[in-house]
């Protein structure tokens, strides 16, 4: 399970070009990590690809922090 968290953080680090230390579970993509709205769309696309899940628009809107992303993916991928 922690594997999912690590993979999510890796994608965030790569995509937003931020320091790994900043990518805490409670970090907000927009407020803490400097993402713009297009970045958040791209992050969702990257998560979908990495984990083979589909993230519907209404769920994507609620993914605001690193933890939100990890929780969604944990809940929607086979353990």
């Amino acid at each position, binding site marked *: 399970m922690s594997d999912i968290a690590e993979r999510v953080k890796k994608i965030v680090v790569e995509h937003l070009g931020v320091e790994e230390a900043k990518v805490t579970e409670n970090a907000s993509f927009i407020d803490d990590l400097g993402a*713009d709205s*297009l970045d958040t769309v*791209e992050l969702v*696309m990257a998560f979908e690809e990495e984990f083979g899940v589909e993230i519907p628009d209404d769920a994507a809107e609620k993914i605001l922090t690193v933890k939100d992303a990890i929780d969604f993916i944990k809940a929607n991928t086979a353990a």
Partner: protein
Amino acid sequence: MFDLQGKSALVTGASGGIGAAIARALHARGASVALSGTKVAALEALRDDLGDRIAIVPANLGVPAEVEDLARQAEEALGKVDILVNNAGLTRDGLAMRMKDEDWDAVIAVNLTAGFRLARALMRGMMKRRWGRIVGISSVVGVTGNAGQANYAASKAGMIGMTKALAAELASRNITANCVAPGFIRTSMTEVLSDEQKARINATIPAGRLGSAEEVAAAVLYLASEEAAYVTGQTLHVNGGMAMI
């Protein structure tokens, strides 16, 4: 200049005069091109003429499901779509007082809504690759208006507004969105005009003649090229000076 080797393009309305000229121009610079349209025989004739690096992806853009399918088919056929040319368009002219709802809806659906759906579907891949070109074929009428064409003028003006919004959203990803707005162009549509009608039209054009499909295609080629990377949200008018905007 304007080298498109390694790029892939989808051109809608490629069975028409302007669409075919656009496909030819992009193909001549090395792009792989997916030809879309409703007249399959015309698309096949064009493919036979151009040779390799061509795919045929017929679609009726008035049918939403076919629009979504078209984006997918083009990406499957070419591996990716870097350049989208929203060229397909139709007219259902009539004075506004008498214009039927279905004539309004049909024109908006094909000329405007289909172009949006294709852009939405294809920008995903463009964003990932950090390169893309969206070119809409608008019309001088979208800026000046024209009696009897409330639906057509609205669709072409709508395309210009939509293009500006796309340009603002996508510029940071190295994707540009622009329009080409032709004036009177020599096509099968204008060939049926009488000499008197043509003379009357020519009198309104400083260049004194109709334009050619190739002259429109050259503008599209420029906007699709690497060289036009810093041009976005613009409308390039190709109209012999009939409207200077």
